[in-house]
């Protein structure tokens, strides 16, 4: 039990309050309300730590903590109380750790923003939107059910849209915001369908209740097809949010937003929500008993998308010259690692469950471990890039170079971040990425396809080290190629960088006192020992391989971009090389294809339907109207010549009356108005009069 349950609510409400305050009066506050945002976030962080410490004290390590639901209020009432949809918080190991992670990173990045956004006129808007974002992310990771998760997920999507388009007068920013919103919307619809299906099958959306009902509903209500469909639909949402193939196209463009936004939303937190959702979807992927056939197809799709996207995105990072876009492709690639880890882990677990063996959630832990580590080092890399951009006023790495002299702190912390991203021991990326790759390799025993995915992952490890150090060397090594006078960022920006740099080492090593990350974050039973503690020999071998290729990649980057012993032109000069280079810079033409699809297929369909509406449907309407007029004028002529002619012959007086009446027909609509109103009054009076008359007559009769 968490003492003082309302504390958990306060974690969400503090940034929400900051959003309201800054939104209403932010312009009048110092730093556009930046201090309010930082203060609220600091409060959230302290409270998150408080909750997390309680979880640990109550046996969080080793699985002693019983997940707890903190009730809120009812959203949709239902005939049956147990079917009503409520907002409630879930506190378990994963969510309490996520709360700490998110609030800590938000806090650091808000502080950094005080320096980075100092000059911007839209500060108040910025702090309001990031505070709302923090509410959304904290709500996402503490949601107790899928609908609540979806709601906070969409709040994040809204903030992402607003913050990508923060500098909205730039057409590129406006276009990127639109693209981000629409592409993720496709995923969101799949997620929404998933929620519909879950609701229809289980009659509840809460994680715990779903898991409890699973066994009784299988296989009649919860057919094997549905069990495959549900996690795939949820994963569809994750693909959109976490920018996986084929919905990856929005993330590189999202770099049009401020760099702090890229660091916070598009690297450290929001894009992780897809991984978090997939982790929560483990209740569908890994059944609780061998009586349920696990949805292997769904698991394979998740792993395959992860394995493919990781290499796919890494290749595009290699050719980009925009320092932030390189990191964006890298984010896609690293997120894909997490999906690969989740998929491989789920496959192994599901296989073990169906054989009735002891279950080991190594893949689950490894993927979330990578999520945890990546949040720190990728936030660091983005903030470092922000510090560089702040100094040289460009994103183009061709106009950088030699900045390690003018930006000593930035260059060192980015080196730390780069080593962590590349996966060099003892930086954090090494442990988690290595763990994911070993889990993938191990899953090969159950399904040989995973050996291929492992190969993709190892190839990516090579490319990751290569593009990371390509970035670092192009930025910090050699001679400065730009025309600015770069100087180091202020303390308010460098201190968060140094703290994050410390975490590139610490976040990996923190697993040691925990007795392995798997001792804290696990699915089913705790898996003490991974990583670092009690790793089997074969895993040392596998992790050696992944680090070996990383070192090779680093060496190649050194040779190409630092010493220039192997010039890059040698590759691009050859015919095949030029084609590959073009293909990669054009991002495999996928963005172009999407644009063309939107412009031609969707928009043309819209225009065709608009034409149909105006010409065909309205044409019919107007045709019927005109037909009516023809009939009417025909009968009018008949009326005037034949009937009226006869009448006229009988009475001249009628004609005179008619002439007088015609004067009233002035053709003015408003005079008709009075006539009509008068008519209504007469009708009402008549009806009432009749009823009184009738009552009076009735009274007489009696």
């Amino acid at each position, binding site marked *: 039990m968490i003492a003082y349950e309302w504390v958990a609510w306060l974690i969400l409400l503090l940034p929400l309050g900051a959003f309201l305050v800054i939104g209403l009066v932010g312009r009048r506050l110092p730093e556009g309300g930046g201090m309010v945002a930082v203060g609220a976030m600091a409060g959230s962080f302290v409270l998150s730590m408080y909750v997390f410490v309680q979880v640990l004290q109550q046996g969080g390590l080793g699985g002693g903590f019983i997940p707890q639901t903190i009730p809120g209020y009812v959203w*949709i*009432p239902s005939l049956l109380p147990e079917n009503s949809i409520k907002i409630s918080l879930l506190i378990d190991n994963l969510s309490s750790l996520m709360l700490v992670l998110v609030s800590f990173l938000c806090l650091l990045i808000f502080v950094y923003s005080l320096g980075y956004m100092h000059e911007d006129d839209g500060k108040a808007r910025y702090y309001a939107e990031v505070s709302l974002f923090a509410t959304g992310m904290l709500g996402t990771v503490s949601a107790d059910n899928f609908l609540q998760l979806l709601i906070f997920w969409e709040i994040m999507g809204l903030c992402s849209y607003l913050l990508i388009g923060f500098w*909205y007068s730039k057409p590129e920013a406006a276009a990127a915001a639109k693209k981000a*919103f629409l592409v993720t919307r496709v995923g969101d619809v799949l997620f929404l369908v998933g929620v519909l299906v879950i609701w229809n099958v289980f009659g509840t959306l809460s994680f715990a209740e779903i898991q409890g009902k699973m066994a009784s509903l299988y296989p009649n209500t919860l057919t094997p097809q549905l069990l495959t469909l549900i996690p795939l639909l949820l994963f569809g949402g994750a693909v959109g949010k976490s920018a996986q193939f084929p919905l990856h196209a929005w993330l590189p463009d999202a770099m049009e937003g401020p760099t702090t936004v890229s660091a916070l939303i598009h690297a450290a937190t929001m894009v992780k929500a897809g991984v978090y959702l997939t982790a929560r979807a483990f209740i569908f992927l890994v059944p609780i008993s061998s009586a349920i056939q696990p949805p292997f197809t769904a698991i394979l799709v998740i792993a395959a998308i992860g394995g493919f996207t990781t290499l796919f995105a890494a290749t595009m990072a290699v050719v980009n010259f925009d320092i932030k876009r390189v990191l964006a492709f890298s984010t896609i690639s690293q997120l894909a690692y997490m999906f690969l880890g989740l998929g491989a882990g789920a496959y192994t677990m599901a296989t073990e469950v169906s054989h009735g063996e002891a279950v080991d959630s190594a893949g689950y832990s490894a993927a979330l471990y990578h999520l945890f580590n990546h949040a720190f080092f990728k936030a660091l890399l983005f903030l470092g890039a922000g510090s560089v951009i702040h100094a040289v006023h460009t994103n183009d790495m061709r106009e950088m170079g030699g900045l390690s002299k003018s930006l000593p702190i930035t260059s060192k912390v980015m080196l730390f971040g780069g080593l962590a991203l590349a996966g060099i021991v003892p930086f954090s990326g090494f442990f988690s990425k290595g763990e994911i790759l070993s889990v993938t390799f191990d899953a090969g025993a159950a399904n040989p396809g995973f050996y291929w995915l492992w190969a993709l992952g190892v190839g990516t490890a090579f490319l990751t080290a290569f593009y990371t150090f390509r970035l670092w060397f192009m930025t910090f090594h050699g001679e400065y190629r730009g025309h600015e006078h770069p100087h180091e960022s202020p303390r308010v920006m460098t201190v968060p960088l140094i703290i994050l740099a410390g975490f590139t080492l610490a976040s990996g090593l923190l697993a040691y006192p925990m007795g392995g990350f798997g001792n804290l974050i696990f699915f089913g039973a705790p898996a003490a020992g991974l990583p670092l503690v009690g790793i089997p020999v074969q895993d040392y071998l596998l992790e050696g391989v992944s680090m070996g290729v990383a070192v090779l990649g680093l060496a190649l980057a050194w040779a190409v971009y630092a010493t220039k012993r192997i010039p890059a032109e040698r590759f691009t000069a050859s015919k095949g090389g030029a084609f590959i280079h073009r293909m990669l810079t054009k991002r495999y033409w996928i963005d172009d294809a999407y644009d063309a699809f939107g412009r031609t297929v969707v928009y043309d369909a819209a225009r065709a339907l*608009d034409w149909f509406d105006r010409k065909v449907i309205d044409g019919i*309407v107007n045709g019927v109207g005109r037909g009516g007029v023809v009939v009417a004028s025909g009968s009018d002529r008949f009326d005037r010549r034949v009937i009226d002619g006869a009448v006229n012959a009988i009475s001249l007086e009628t004609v005179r009356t008619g002439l007088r009446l015609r004067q009233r027909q002035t053709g003015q609509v*408003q005079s008709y108005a009075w006539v009509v109103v008068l008519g209504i009054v007469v009708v009402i009076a008549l009806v009432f009069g009749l009823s009184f008359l009738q009552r009076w007559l009735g009274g007489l009769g009696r």
Partner: protein
Amino acid sequence: MTYILSLLILVPLLGAVVVWVAGTSQRLAKLIALSFSLVETALASFLLVGFINPSWGVVFGPPTATPPPTPGAYVPLFYMERYTWISQFGLNYIVGVDGLSIPLIWLTALLTTLALVFHWDEENRPRAFFGLFLFLEMALAGVFMALDFFLFAIFWELVLLPMFFLIGIWGGSNRRYAALKFLIFTHVGFVIMLFGIFTLYFNSAGVNAAVYGTNANTLDMTAFLHGALRHETGGLATYLPLALQIPIFAVFLFGFIVKLPSFPFHTWLPDAHVEAPTGGSVLLAGVLLKMGGYGIFRINMGMLPEAMKDLWWVLAVLGTVSMVYAAFVCLAQVDLKRLIAYSSVGHMGFVLLGASSLTVIGVQGAIFQLFNHGIITAILFMLAGSVKHATGTRDIPDLQGLAKVMPQFSLILAIGFFASLGLPGLNSFWSEFMVFVGAYGSPNLGEMRRLIIIPLISIVVTAAYYVYTMQRILFGDVPEKLGHSHDLLPWERVSYVVLVALVFLVGFFPVPFLGMINAYTSASFPWLGGL
């Protein structure tokens, strides 16, 4: 106090008369109109809170339902008034409300008031203008509470007249065409509906005898409501046979989908909106369209359940086509107001889809959608009015970078658009979500439930046209000619603040409204399926 409903009809009627008689100056006319409208809103609000929580119904007493004289199940209708009008023809003055009509009556009062406030600077024939609004308010309130077919028909027709003149006199350049089109379309719908009323009347003696113990034809709607409920729950053996219900169902449905409107009878709507003055559009989309939805629940579902169970697929198809079709057509629109008009067609498609699901949650979602759409579309039409006022144009290609020069407008526009595209946490998310839950879980569908993906396409396209529009009109650099556009006017701000507050309030705390709707559906349609 059982005369509250008559008061709700009389206050705006009296207001209209007073404005016509005494509103000699613009100032006087609008002040009189506003005060009557505020009184009406206050009365409607007392009624509303009494429904949300009976213990809050202190002003008019807690709502109590009036049962029919015969024992058995009955549809609870509250604050009923019943006076005999002309007994020889079976004409009665019967009014009553329930969880279906209360939100709509409140919406009518609220939107009328806000529309009046929005038109605070109307100089063109203010007396007639403000008077017509009150007259319209009276007629709309009457439609939603009339429980006698004759009364219902009178109010239904009375609604057309003020709207016809609002479009025809204060409208844009093509106003005569639009006003006439509006009038003819909805009037034809009404005339066809009359056949249904007549058929019901001539077959009502049996039902009337079973419910009220009078073996005579009647136009009393409650007789059919109670009768249908008893028939569905097994308390009444003979009710209108299916073969009779189907043609009646069809003619009523025609009248209602013209009003709603649904594809393919929707083309009057964009024209009417483009020409109508802002306040006219607000009431047209905010409340007039809801008459169609109201009719479907009150008459098609409430009185003809057998036909509804037989012909649900008609509603499902019409709703789905409207949703997808309108979303695509919106994407191609140039005039902002036309775009919003088409978006209404799409959002009313949700109502048909929800009703067709015949599930508790789907029907609740559809009724809730009526209310939510009223709030949101009022904001959107006001925005179209504001932008026209500020920049002189509503054409999307001529507008650009308004976020810089009109920040308040831009904020409201973003909120309105996101609410309309169903952003979770805002009000229409709940209704749309519930409609989808209902439609997917509909017991009618069986294996066909995977077709739910077709209406879901409209969600993406809806997001696309709103986000694309925002990109074009709010973002980018400000062109020279828009550089001096003024932001929202003070009285406009009042209207927006109230509506935006409702968007958030209902979004975060939907329970007061859903509870009311839940009580209505569970008492009136216990035969609905689903969870």
